[in-house]
């Protein structure tokens, strides 16, 4: 019976804490959204190369692959289809 009462207390404390932490995470998320929207409002778009021969989504995929492989240093200036 003693264990049961202790387990019941732990249930209250445990569920309460989990709810509090996740509510804090939610509120923190909202706060971060506000802060980021205010101080870093523009998202850096990866360079997209519009060409007549290569569709935009493929051009963006190539551009991102080059970005990853070169550690952000390389840039795609032109894509040609032969």
């Amino acid at each position, binding site marked *: 019976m003693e264990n049961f009462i202790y387990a019941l207390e732990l249930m209250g404390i445990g569920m309460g804490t989990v709810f509090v932490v996740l509510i804090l995470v939610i509120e923190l998320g909202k706060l971060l959204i506000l802060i980021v929207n205010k101080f870093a409002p*523009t998202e850096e778009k990866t360079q997209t190369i519009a060409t007549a021969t290569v569709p935009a989504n493929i051009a963006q995929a190539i551009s991102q692959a080059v970005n990853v492989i070169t550690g952000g240093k390389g840039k795609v200036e032109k894509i040609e289809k032969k």
Partner: protein
Amino acid sequence: MENIWEKIYGMTALSDIIADPRFLIMYCLAFLLLYLGIKKEFEPLLLVPIAFGVLIANFPGGGMGVLGADGEGLVHYVKDGVEVSKNVYSMTLPEIAHDLGLMNYIYYALIKSGLLPPIIFMGVGALTDFGPMLRNLKLAIFGAGAQFGIFAVLLVASQFFTMKEAASLAIIGGADGPTAIFTTLKLAPHLLAPIAIAAYSYMALVPVIIPLVVKLTCSKKELMINMKEQDKLYPNKVEFKNMRVLKIVFPIAVTTIVAIIVPDAVALVGMLMFGNLLKEIGANTFRLFDTVSNGIMNAATVFLGLSVGATMTVDAFLNWTTLGIVAGGFLAFGFSIFGGIMLVKIMNLFTKKKINPLVGATGLSAVPMASRVANDIALKYDPKNHVLNYCMSSNVAGVIGSAVAAGILISFLG
């Protein structure tokens, strides 16, 4: 001539298997798990190594079974024909490898030391996208509702086990293998084998357990609630101007908050968020992200799966304590899904914007499988009702929730 045949017979495992037919039960179990992993594709990355570990651990004379230490840390084994009892925690790793074999070496070096669970959390973090959660922040609360199973089973198990053992059993309800291992190592290390097996087996069986609980608790009308339609009716007013920066700041901020409130959860939440941060930074940390999410994660999964499977030996598995843990773990899992669903139902009573109860069912940690399973269920009722992104919000929050629950149990009982 007869002597030679006797020697050959004695050399094989047959004589031991015939003397103890319980081995056959373990082979059947291993074959069943392999079938579920390979043919039914129930989380094969986990289930196949576990099942193969079960298989190779149960060949007498093979020396691949993990020897569990008793409450005092003693392992009992035969060396040069003499029965030996030693405290495993005072043995060196080379001694463990020499006396107990390869699998025990892996088990005691990587799992019993507590190394692998946080490492796996790091990999999980690297594979987790907090984007869906940030876009549907309110749904993250169901990650708390789905921890109900942990504490409900703690109540029941406290009548049959010590509090530390009951807490280790109950944490299976968090549906998170690394968390279950981490908690058990801190509270009841002698129960690690059956608890790890139960936790991982039920995680692999999420495609069976979630539909079962959903079928028992949800109506067709509830399961047809279309979240996108609800979003159109009651649009989310939050605007995201720079998701990339938000995703980078988020893991840092969450780690700080959780570390202040529940320091015992930092080993898990901190590593989870570190892995995620490596992913979100992008090109500058890509090499680290790549290593964490592929090389380290895959190696950890192989060793964890095999050695957890190898803990499932005849003596360790076929006893009442283990069977009680397996039954209790199932209840914890079921109650957790039930808890998430009930929280949705209660919230639906008071809000205009209705939520599909499947979002509550995925408050478990089993990411992303729980969400995929929930999405499949929703599509069965309405082929246009894609709930995956919404479920991912509660699902990812469930990882944080179960780690926090583990931290609370450790800090109160450890």
